[in-house]
C-alpha cells in the first residue's frame, strides 16, 4: 500500500527509477527513525509517509532542475502497465476518485496543483511561470485545495481519515 503508492509518487516527480528508489528508501528510513515522534492525533500514517515521500522527491527534483522541462506533458502517461501490486482494488478506487476529482477542477486550479505538487514549483516560481502576482497564486492554490477537499469528500473519501477505500 504505502510502498507502492510512495514509489509511484516519487517516480512521477523525479522521473528516474533509481532516484525514485532513493527517495522512497530515504522516506521510509525517516519513518523508521522518527516513528517515536509520530502523533496519530495529527494525521494518519499514510498521510505522513506520502507527505515525507513528496517532500523528499520535490527536494530532489529541485536539485535536479533539468527535470523540470518535462514536467506536465507526460503527467498522465502510465509508467508501468498494470503492475501486480497496483491491481489491488482499493488503490484503483482511490486513484479513480482522486483523478476524477482533479478532472472536475477548473483548469487554472488543476494547473497550479499539478505544477506545485508534481513538478515541485514553489509559489514564487509559479508566479513567475504563470505571469501572475504572488498573491493570486496563493489565493488560487488555496481555492484549488479547498475545492479538491470538497470533491474528495463528495466522492466518499475523507483524506483525513485514511484511505479506507474498501471495495466490499
Amino acid at each position, binding site marked *: *500500500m*504505502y*510502498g*507502492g503508492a510512495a*514509489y*509511484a509518487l516519487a*517516480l*512521477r*516527480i523525479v522521473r528516474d527509477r533509481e532516484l525514485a*528508489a532513493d527517495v*522512497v*528508501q530515504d522516506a*521510509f*528510513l525517516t*519513518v*523508521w527513525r522518527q*516513528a*517515536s515522534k*509520530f502523533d496519530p492525533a495529527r*494525521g494518519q*500514517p499514510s*498521510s*505522513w*509517509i*506520502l*507527505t515525507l515521500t513528496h*517532500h523528499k522527491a520535490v527536494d530532489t527534483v529541485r536539485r535536479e532542475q533539468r527535470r523540470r522541462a518535462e514536467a506536465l506533458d507526460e503527467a498522465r*502517461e*502510465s*509508467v*508501468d502497465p*498494470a*503492475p501486480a*501490486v497496483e491491481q489491488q*482494488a*482499493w*488503490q484503483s478506487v*482511490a*486513484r479513480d476518485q*482522486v*483523478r476524477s476529482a482533479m478532472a472536475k477542477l477548473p483548469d487554472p486550479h488543476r494547473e497550479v496543483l499539478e505544477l*506545485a*505538487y*508534481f513538478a*515541485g*514549483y*514553489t*509559489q514564487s516560481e509559479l508566479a513567475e511561470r504563470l505571469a501572475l502576482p504572488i498573491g493570486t497564486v*496563493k489565493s488560487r*492554490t488555496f481555492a484549488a*485545495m479547498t475545492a479538491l*477537499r470538497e470533491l474528495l469528500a463528495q466522492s466518499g*473519501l475523507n*483524506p*483525513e481519515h*485514511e*484511505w479506507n477505500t*474498501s*471495495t*466490499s
Partner: protein
Amino acid sequence: MEHVDELISGYALHGLDAADERLVLEHVETCERCRVQLREMEAVAAALAFAAPQAEPPPELRDRLLEAIGPEVVPSAPPEAPPERRARWSWWPRFSAVAVPVLGVAVIALAVWNISLRGDVKDADVRSVAPIANVGSVVSFSGGQATVFGGLKPAPADHTYEAWVIPKGETVPQAAGTFAGGNDMSFTLTRNASAGDTIVITLEPGTGGSAPKGPVVGKTSI
C-alpha cells in the same frame, strides 16, 4: 489573530519559501483553528499522490530498505534474542521486543509494504500490530486477514509449524495453516481473525492436523 489559510495550502504542497514556511509553523503553534486546517490540507495533498501513474517498486528496493534499517535495529535488539534470530533479516522479533506504540508506525508501514508487494491482501487497512513472544509480530487487517512476521528456527524433520485461531470467548483452536519457519518469515493465516481473537503457533508432528498436538511456540491476542 490573523489566520494563514492561504499559506497553509502552499505549505501542504511544500511550495512556500523559507520565510512563509516559518510564518506558518510559528502560527500553528498557537492557533488550533489553523492547526486543524493544516492537517486537513496535508491530507488532501497526500491524496494527490494517488493521481500519480502506476509504478511498481523494483524488487530490490525492499531489500535495500531492510539492509539500511538492519544496522540501526541491532543496537536496540533485546540481549536475550536467541542466536538463530540474529541473522540479517530477522528484525521482526526485535520490533516485538520494543514497545509497539513507539515503533508502531514503522512496523505498520513496513508490514504493509511487505504484504502489498506480495499482493495477497485486498483491503490493506491495518487494524492492529501485536507482538507474539518467541516469534515476532502479528499484523491484522480490517478485512480479517492476519499475517505473522518473524523469525523461527526451521521446523525439524517430520514437523511443521501450525497457526491456530481461537475466536474470542471460545476455547477450541481452529487450524489456520502450516508453515516451515525460517528467518524473515511471513505467513498469512488461512483463516480470518477478528479483534479479540487469540493467535497461537505450535510445532506439530508430521504435517499438522485439525487439532493441536504439539507444544505452543508463541501466543498472542489481536
